[in-house]
C-alpha cells in the first residue's frame, strides 16, 4: 500500500513484481553510473585552462564509446526480455474474476460457479473514518485468495478505464467491447 512521502515502488506482492523491482534497481544503477560519468566529464571540461585547437585523431576513443553503449544496452535488454517472457508463461488459473469499469466505479464478477457480482465505489474523502486511505478505500473490496493463480479479465461498460494494482505489478486497460486478460498471483495476504 502507498505511504506518505513514498519515493520508490511499493513492496512486491507477486513474483513478477519482485523481478521488476530488481530489474529497475539494475537499470537505474546503470543510469546513475552513466549520468555521474557524464556530469563528471562536463565538470572537467568546464574547469580546465588547457586548450587544444588542432584536429585530433580519435579512432580509439570513438570505438570504445560505440562498443560500450552497445554492451550496456544488451545488459539492459537481456533481463528485460527475460521478464517479458516470464510474464507470458502459460499458467492455468484456478479462478477467473472480471473487473468491469463504469463511470465512476468498478464492478466485479465471480462467475465460475454461481453468479456473484457487486459494485465497488470509492469512499468520498468527506466520509472517511480516521485511519482510512484517502482515494483508495472502497465500500466493497475485491477479495481474492492468495497463492493462487487468478485470471483477471478487465473490460469496460462505457469509456476507457484502467485497472491497476501497483504492488502486484498490474495495470490493464479496460476497453469497452474488449476483454483483456492479466494473471495475478499474490504471495502474501494483505490490502493492496
Amino acid at each position, binding site marked *: 500500500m502507498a505511504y506518505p512521502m513514498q519515493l520508490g515502488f511499493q513492496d512486491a506482492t507477486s513474483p513478477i513484481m519482485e523481478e521488476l523491482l*530488481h530489474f529497475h534497481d539494475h537499470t537505474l544503477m546503470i543510469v546513475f553510473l552513466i549520468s555521474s560519468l557524464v556530469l563528471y566529464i562536463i565538470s572537467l571540461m568546464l574547469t580546465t585552462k588547457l586548450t587544444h585547437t588542432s584536429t585530433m585523431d580519435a579512432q580509439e576513443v570513438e570505438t570504445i564509446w560505440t562498443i560500450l553503449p552497445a554492451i550496456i544496452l544488451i545488459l539492459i535488454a537481456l533481463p528485460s526480455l527475460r521478464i517479458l517472457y516470464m510474464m507470458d508463461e502459460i499458467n492455468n488459473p*484456478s479462478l477467473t474474476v472480471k473487473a468491469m469499469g463504469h463511470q465512476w466505479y468498478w464492478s466485479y464478477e465471480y462467475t465460475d460457479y454461481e453468479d456473484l457480482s457487486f459494485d465497488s465505489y470509492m469512499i468520498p474523502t468527506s466520509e472517511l473514518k480516521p485511519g482510512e486511505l484517502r482515494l483508495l478505500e472502497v465500500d466493497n473490496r475485491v477479495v481474492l*485468495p492468495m497463492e493462487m493463480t487468478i485470471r483477471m*479479465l478487465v473490460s469496460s461498460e462505457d469509456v476507457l478505464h484502467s485497472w491497476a494494482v501497483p504492488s502486484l505489478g498490474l495495470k490493464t486497460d479496460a476497453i469497452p467491447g474488449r476483454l483483456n486478460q492479466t494473471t495475478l*498471483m499474490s504471495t502474501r495476504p494483505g490490502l493492496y
Partner: protein
Amino acid sequence: MGVARTAPGTALWPCGRLLCARLPPASGRSFFRFRPGTGVFAEGHIELPATSGASLGVSTMAEDIQTKIKNYQTAPFDSRFPNQNQTRNCWQNYLDFHRCEKAMTAKGGDVSVCEWYRRVYKSLCPISWVSTWDDRRAEGTFPGKI
C-alpha cells in the same frame, strides 16, 4: 512454506542471473512455481481439494468430459486464444454452447454434453454481454451464426 524465490539483490553487480538470461519462452525459472491447490494456506483461506491433475483447472491427461465438468474450477488455458485479448474466447464459447444446445435438442440428444461450453462462457463473459446477447437471440437480431 516460504516464498521460495531467490532474492538476487543487485544481480549484475557482480552478475549471476543476468548471464543466464534466456530469450525463448519456457525458461526454467518459472514464475508459476506455486501450483494451485497444493500450497499451504494461511488460516482462514479457502483450500481447494488437490486430488488430481484436474485440480489445475485443466485436464492434462485424457479424461472424459463428465469428470472434467465435475472438477471444473475455471476456464483453462485455450491455445486458440493465447494472448491478452480474450474477447474471441468468450464469444466462441458462447456460440459453441448455443450451437451445441440447438444441435442436441434438434437431434433429441443429451444437452448435458454442452455443459463444458456453458461453464467456460459463464467464467469468461461479462454478465452484461451475456444478457445482451440472450436478449438479441430472443429477438432474432443476434449477429452470430447459431
